[in-house]
């Protein structure tokens, strides 16, 4: 007879996974099909109505626009800057650790605290950004029409103008995030065997660009897949900054109404658990798709070593 001991080994882990991960997700899916509002005794089953709202209402259209704008600005820039910073630091003999620490500082700082600092910096009149810009008035910079307009009246309300808000927030996202990618890339770079560079040089790859194109970049493949995926997931998850800047409404004309904030606004601020759960499920679906793509890439394409 076969021993049942294996059940005792995998049982606790399985049970935990069900209780901590799967059951809450199932509850969220269940809630998303109802109109449950916190504090009510019961709830009505409404089918896919909540999802229909998400894909038809203009508010949620703004949510997707804001989320994708943020994600597609922040991911390429954090990955690019992260790689660039890692290559530069890797090529440094001295001071490498110092730069590493400097670039990594924003990652360690709590974003919500940093948001308050940025809020001061971006203050329309007394903030350091606009008061520095004002110093340039009356110089050659006024030849730039945008600058002249700012001098004439006021420089933009970086955080409260709907044409600027999402880009300002994205900028802070990049500032905060690229140090993390830099560290991941640095780890990737140290694992590249130096002999490969020697071999490449013998085969005629003498220029730095050739070495990067033929050795470094392909060997960083697995790291890149991981970095890109983690950057996507982290950008989809942006929340604390938005909540700190725009506690009500998600930015001017909802231009920074990212998904996580939408979940918070519906589910927590307005107690509408049904629609909040529905947005959560859509969010999970996005993250799931990204993870599946990552698995697929890792297994197929990136095994060089």
């Amino acid at each position: 007879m076969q021993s049942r001991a294996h059940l005792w080994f995998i049982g606790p882990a399985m049970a935990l996974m069900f209780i901590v991960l799967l059951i809450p997700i199932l509850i969220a899916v269940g809630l998303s099909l109802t109109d449950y509002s916190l504090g009510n005794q019961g709830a009505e089953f409404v089918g896919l109505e909540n999802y229909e709202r998400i894909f038809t209402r203009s508010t949620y259209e703004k949510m997707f626009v804001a989320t994708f704008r943020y994600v597609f600005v922040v991911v390429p820039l954090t990955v690019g800057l992260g790689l660039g910073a890692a290559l530069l630091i890797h090529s440094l003999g001295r001071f490498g650790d110092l730069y590493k620490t400097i670039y990594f500082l924003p990652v360690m700082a709590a974003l919500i605290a940093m948001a308050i600092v940025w809020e001061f910096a971006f203050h329309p009149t007394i903030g350091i950004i606009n008061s520095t810009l004002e110093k340039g008035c009356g110089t050659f910079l006024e030849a730039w029409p945008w600058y002249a307009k700012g001098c004439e009246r006021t420089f933009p309300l970086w955080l409260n103008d709907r044409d600027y808000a999402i880009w300002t927030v994205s900028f802070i996202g990049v500032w905060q995030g690229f140090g993390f990618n830099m560290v991941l890339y640095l780890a990737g770079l140290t694992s590249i065997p130096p002999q490969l560079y020697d071999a490449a040089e013998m085969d005629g790859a003498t220029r730095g660009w050739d070495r990067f194109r033929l050795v470094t970049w392909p060997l960083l493949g697995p790291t890149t897949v991981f970095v890109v995926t983690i950057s996507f997931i982290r950008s989809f998850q942006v929340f604390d900054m938005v909540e700190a800047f725009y506690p009500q409404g998600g930015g001017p004309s909802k231009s920074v109404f990212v998904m996580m904030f939408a979940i918070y606004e519906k589910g927590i601020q307005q107690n509408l658990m049904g629609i909040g759960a529905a947005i959560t499920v859509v969010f999970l679906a996005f993250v799931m798709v990204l993870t599946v793509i990552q698995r697929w890439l890792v297994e197929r394409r990136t095994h060089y070593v």
Partner: protein
Amino acid sequence: MKYAMTAMGFVLAATAAAAEDKIVVEFGYPYSHLFDVTYEAILPKFYAAHPNIEIKMRATYESYEDGTNTILREAVAGNLPDVTMQGLNRQAILVEKGIARSLEPFIAAEADFAKDGYHKAMLDLGTFGDEVYGLPFSISLPVGYYNMEVMAKAGYDATNLPATWEDVVQACVKLREAGVDNPMFWGWNITGNWFLQALMWSQDKPTVEGNDFQLDSDEGLVALETMQNIFTGCEMQNLEWKSALASFSAGDLGMMYWSTSAVGAVERAMGDFTLVTNEYPGITAEGPMGLPAGGNSALLTSTSDDPEQLAAAWAWLKFITSGEGAADVARTTGYMPPNQAANEIILADFYAENPAKATAVRQLPLLREWQAYPGDNGLAATQVIYDGLEGIVTGEYEDMAELQEELSEEVQDLLD
């Protein structure tokens, strides 16, 4: 180990003894920047009168919406405070959900309740289905704030301040010509919908009738167009409300339309200029026909069955809404205490000495209800209106008729 247990035993016994000595009443209130000073003034007086009660302040609510929401969450989690201050238009939902307790039994036990200055018109603000649930604590109305030094640059003095919104736009143009970058701020963002109701009541039109959102009326379009004229005519910046108050206090703005509630806070924070408040402008030269009452009232949300605990909560609730407690509201903020005794006896000379706080009192005959958006989606409906109004400020919506239709549909959909 044994010592540790003994020590723990002592600690437990000590806390139990302390709890026996004093009854702790848990209390939550909104807008700490307005009310912290008020409660700081009231507490010593309360402790002198009730030495055996301790008031434990919970973290303040950021806004009325946040306050309601916190209470709804706490009701589910089972850790409600004993007394909570809620926006006048958010009482209904807590009564509907059975979270607020009726105050009738306590009122019945009071010997001379009316003599304490609670009169019917004010009690009506907290009465639902013949029973009193909330005792109003502070009442506000929208008023105009003027920085007279800035206004003087365009030739304005206390006698010719703008009386209609068109006058306001003209004043903006003159001020801008006189070199003022930011002439005006209009508080559209006060709890997301209060100023919309102000423009509706100005035309004597309620914003909600039964379950029907009334923005799709002619008055609704006038309200939206008036806002658009103000925003574009004054080229108003989309300031967050805290920075708007800060800008006005710093002397940058010439005019600010806001709740009278902030007069106290502005007077404490303002730089060296002359502050004058004046009547809220009207759509026509006759002035507004009505204005929504802002403010909050005290609700009893204790889940305790212990009569002593309830008596203590009631003592606090009654203390802050009557007599000296209520008078401190007027002294420290720009709010009016909705209590006759406090207004007529304790504060008899107060308004003559504080003319900036007297404007709202002059406007009292215009006082109308601050209407609630009924049902579970009340908060969501408020947010839709907030987003719509913000769209006018940011210039996202240019066609008011289109916005009127869009907002009416979306809000109505939430109220049905």
